[in-house]
């Protein structure tokens, strides 16, 4: 472990914290442009967070302390995830302490806490949101894991750094299994981050909403943490995508100043592209009925498993 | 000397009770005679342990490990049953189901029955054995009809005719044996019917005739064992007679009959050197187990239920004897022992249960455990024991039998497995609601006589956990004597 590794680690986390809202802002801008609307400012998410932190927190009478703890736990989990994913370098101290399965477990923990918090107040919307979130989760998680397993089988390790290094080394050319799982991954990403066509982040009090329904009772700093956590989640997913499918630019081996100088711009470029891409998808597709969501995710799961089988069939 | 006591006491008891059997103290006298018999049997046992096999009274009586343990068992169960019947029959008398006259008949016939069974066990003379077996039927047939209800009369009639006809076949078989032996041992004289002599020369006896003889004997004594399809009399007789009689019929008479079958099997197998006898025994055994297990599902009368369970267990023992070999024989002997102990104790509790709730119909017997915990637990534990649940002794024998079957007769193992499962469901689904659940019956004034029940269960439990070495040696010796493939 060299000092620069630690520095990079911290840098990575801080970058994630800082860039997550901006990435959301960028995504919204792209969407607005594609829909011929005047785009909101890139910094709007920051202002929102700032505003929320200022406000006085209002908590329902019936809320237990679980309700107040949850935002911090969720936020903490997302930050940790940001530290785990090798978005800049592969030999970072936190990165070795967990593999992809643990990462998925981390996301699951965050989800469970969020749902429990949503059920805590005991309103119709809260429980509804929790139920739907878990429904999305129990299909999305396996799909995500399957995606990861394809990559793990290819580079015979479930550790993200190992996968990244292996793929970045360019030893593996275009693998059909990987292609399948890439499709699955995008579907999962949309579902997990409450994007269209699964959920509509822009609306409130609509009977089809999922994420918003869960955080309906939150206000002020708790809401801010929840929102921030959500943005981090999106950011993390995108980074996972990079780690699995576009590992270029990530510094391999112990990182040096040069590697760092390469890694940061590369990440920025990839993020910009990803944001645009997501915006495009969200624009061309329409929100679907809640009961259709399982089918959507089942497709994702199917793609992932297919990817696995294809890899085993061709690979073995 | 011991033998004389053993046989004389019951006769004397029968005679005496025939006179004063209705008196106030008659039950105690009955018990006292049984006690005497039991002590005599113990003495005899001790002597056998000390000196080995005995030939007495001009070779007319022969005591070896095989029958001495049955003698002890018979005397013991006879004693406990007498103890049980003391209060039980009193209650029956109070309920007006009996008249003093019949009570006299009951007592004297009870002793006579004990005598015939002991005679059948101890005699060395196949002919005398036949006489004794027939005597056992005759002495019990009037006990079965003791209540004079239509059902009991019918049961008694069937018991009499079927067993009588069966036993007649046995007589013919005995004659054939005699003829065959006469060829070897010199036509005339008593020796040709003495088991010891027959056993000595069994190698030279003419196979075909012996095969025929075995068939006749098997049909004859098998009828009394209650082997399907000769079993038809058994459930009726066991269900309709007074409970003590059901207990001794099921617990002892079946054993004695099976003893007779096995004795003849030994001779025949010795001369035939073929699978025939064992195949026949195994066939009868399996058939009995399967049919009884199935019929258990349809029972409504508690004593009838356990009568069928007796058929099932006799089937198991017969099957084991059929398999032969030291382990299977050992297991079969053990099974005879534990079955007679367990089954008699079950009949005791069943009798009390029926008395307490005034009916033998099982769907009217409920919540025994609240009505009278001892009876409830007695019935529950007894049933579990008879179903072959450890740590009771029945499991021990079934363990040996099933493992042996799995190795030597794999084709039979699945059948036994299914049959035992069916039997378990059949019995337990009926016992559980009787023991547990709510009840509206009121407690009866008199306390049940459950000392015998728990003595038996305790012994069975002991046999499940630990078999005393000398007992084990007995069984081994007997098993060796029976031999087989």
């Amino acid at each position, binding site marked *: 472990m060299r000092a620069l590794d630690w520095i990079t680690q911290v840098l990575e986390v801080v970058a994630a914290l800082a860039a997550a809202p901006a990435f959301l802002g960028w995504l919204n801008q792209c969407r607005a442009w594609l829909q011929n609307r005047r785009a909101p400012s890139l910094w709007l998410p920051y202002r929102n967070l700032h505003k929320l932190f200022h406000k006085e927190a209002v908590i329902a009478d019936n809320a237990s302390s679980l309700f107040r703890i949850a935002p911090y736990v969720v936020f903490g989990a997302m930050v940790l995830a940001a530290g785990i994913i090798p978005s800049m370098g592969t030999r970072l101290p936190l990165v070795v302490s967990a593999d992809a399965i643990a990462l998925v477990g981390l996301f699951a923990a965050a989800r469970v806490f969020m749902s429990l918090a949503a059920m805590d107040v005991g309103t119709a919307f809260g429980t509804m949101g929790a139920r739907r979130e878990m429904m999305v989760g129990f299909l999305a998680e396996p799909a995500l894991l399957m995606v990861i397993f394809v990559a793990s089988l290819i580079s015979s390790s479930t550790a993200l750094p190992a996968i990244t290094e292996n793929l970045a080394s360019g030893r593996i050319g275009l693998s059909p299994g990987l292609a399948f799982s890439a499709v699955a991954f995008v579907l999962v990403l949309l579902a997990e981050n409450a994007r269209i066509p699964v959920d509509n982040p822009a609306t409130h009090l609509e009977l089809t909403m999922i994420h918003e329904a869960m955080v309906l009772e939150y206000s002020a700093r708790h809401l801010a943490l929840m929102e921030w956590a959500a943005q981090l989640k999106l950011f993390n997913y995108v980074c996972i995508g990079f780690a699995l499918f576009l590992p270029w630019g990530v510094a391999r081996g112990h990182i040096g100043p040069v590697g760092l100088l390469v890694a940061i711009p590369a990440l920025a470029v990839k993020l910009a592209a990803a944001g645009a891409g997501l915006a495009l998808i969200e624009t061309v597709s329409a929100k679907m009925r809640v009961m259709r969501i399982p089918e959507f995710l089942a497709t994702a799961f199917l793609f992932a498993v297919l990817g696995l089988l294809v890899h085993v069939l061709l690979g073995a | 000397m011991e033998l004389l006591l053993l046989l004389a006491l019951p006769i004397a008891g029968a005679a005496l009770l025939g006179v004063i059997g209705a008196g106030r103290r008659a039950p105690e006298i009955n018990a006292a005679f049984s006690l005497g018999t039991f002590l005599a049997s113990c003495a005899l046992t001790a002597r056998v342990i000390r000196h080995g096999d005995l030939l007495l009274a001009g070779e007319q009586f022969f005591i070896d490990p095989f029958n001495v343990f049955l003698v002890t068992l018979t005397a013991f169960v006879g004693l406990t049953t007498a103890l049980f019947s003391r209060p039980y029959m009193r209650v029956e008398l109070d309920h007006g189901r009996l008249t003093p006259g019949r009570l006299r008949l009951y007592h004297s016939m009870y002793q006579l029955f004990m005598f015939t069974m002991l005679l059948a066990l101890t005699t060395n003379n196949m*002919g005398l054995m*036949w*006489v004794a077996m027939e*005597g056992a039927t*005759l002495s019990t047939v009037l006990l079965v009809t003791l209540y004079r209800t239509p059902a009991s009369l*019918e049961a008694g009639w069937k018991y009499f005719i079927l067993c009588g006809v069966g036993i007649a076949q046995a007589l013919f078989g005995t004659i054939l044996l005699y003829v065959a032996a006469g060829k070897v041992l010199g036509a005339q004289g008593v020796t040709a019917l003495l088991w010891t002599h027959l056993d000595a020369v069994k190698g030279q006896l003419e196979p075909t005739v012996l095969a*025929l003889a075995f068939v006749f004997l098997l049909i004859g004594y098998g009828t009394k064992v209650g082997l399907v399809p000769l079993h038809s009399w058994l459930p009726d007789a066991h269900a309709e007679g007074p409970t003590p009689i059901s207990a001794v019929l099921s617990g002892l008479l079946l054993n004695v009959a099976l003893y007779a079958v096995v004795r003849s099997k030994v001779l025949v197998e010795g001369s035939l050197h073929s699978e025939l006898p064992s195949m026949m025994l195994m066939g009868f055994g399996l058939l009995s187990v399967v049919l009884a297990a199935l019929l258990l599902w349809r029972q409504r009368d508690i004593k009838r239920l356990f009568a069928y369970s007796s058929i099932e267990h006799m089937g198991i023992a017969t099957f084991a004897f059929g398999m032969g070999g030291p382990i299977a024989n050992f297991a079969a002997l053990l099974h005879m022992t534990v079955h007679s102990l367990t089954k008699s104790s079950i009949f005791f509790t069943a009798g009390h249960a029926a008395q307490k709730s005034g009916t033998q119909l099982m769907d009217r017997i409920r919540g025994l455990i609240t009505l009278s915990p001892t009876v409830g637990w007695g019935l529950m534990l007894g049933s579990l024991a008879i179903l072959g649940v450890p740590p009771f002794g029945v499991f021990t024998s079934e363990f040996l039998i099933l493992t042996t079957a799995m190795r030597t007769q794999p084709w039979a193992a699945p059948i036994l497995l299914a049959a035992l499962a069916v039997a378990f469901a059949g019995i337990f689904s009926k016992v559980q609601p009787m023991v547990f659940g709510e009840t509206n019956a009121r407690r009866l004034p008199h306390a049940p006589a459950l000392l015998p029940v728990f003595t038996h269960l305790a012994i069975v439990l002991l046999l499940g956990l630990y078999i005393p070495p000398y007992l084990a040696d007995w069984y081994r010796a007997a098993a060796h004597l029976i031999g087989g493939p």
Partner: protein
Amino acid sequence: MTHLPLDQQMLDSCAALLLLLSFAMLSQRRIVTLVNLYAVQGAVLAAATLLLAWRTGEGHLYLSAALTLALKVAFLPWLLHRLIRRLEVYWDTEPLLNVSGTMLAGLLIVVFAFALAQPITLLASTATRGAVGIAVSVVLLAFLMMITRRKAMSQVVGFLSMENGVFFGAMSASYGMPMVVELGVALDVLVAVLVLGVFFFQIRERFESLDLHHLESLKEHE
């Protein structure tokens, strides 16, 4: 067959007579006659035993002949007749299998019985071994009769004649059994009939008749 000694011929004819008698019993429906036939059977049996005794000079055979005479010719028929009169059962109802059918079955049984008797005949050393087959068929015919009858009384007669058959078997195959056994057997038969007597009255006082269809209530199959 021509120059058989006289007693031998008589014995054989006795055997033949026994067979004939059991066929007669098989077809007979009048209970009184049935009992008489049984008595005759007993008499023939006694005669045969006597002949054998005279021929072999076996002491105990005289005794068993006497026993047979006393028990099966005199006492039991008398007892049965008495019962019949007391209980007014004179006729048996139509047998389960009609007469001709029963006869046919009987014939088959006789054939089978002779097949069965072969090995025994070969083994036995007695002059009368030929008759073993007849003994077997008497037993089996009695069995058949018990199956086909509906009245308790006639079943009992069947039972007794079966016992006769067994006795004749013992006689012809090995000049009878040891004395102890024969006494025991006789005792048993005697007791059996006495018990039966008691029985009949019990049944009677319940059902007012000795028809067996009263005794078919204990069963599994509804």
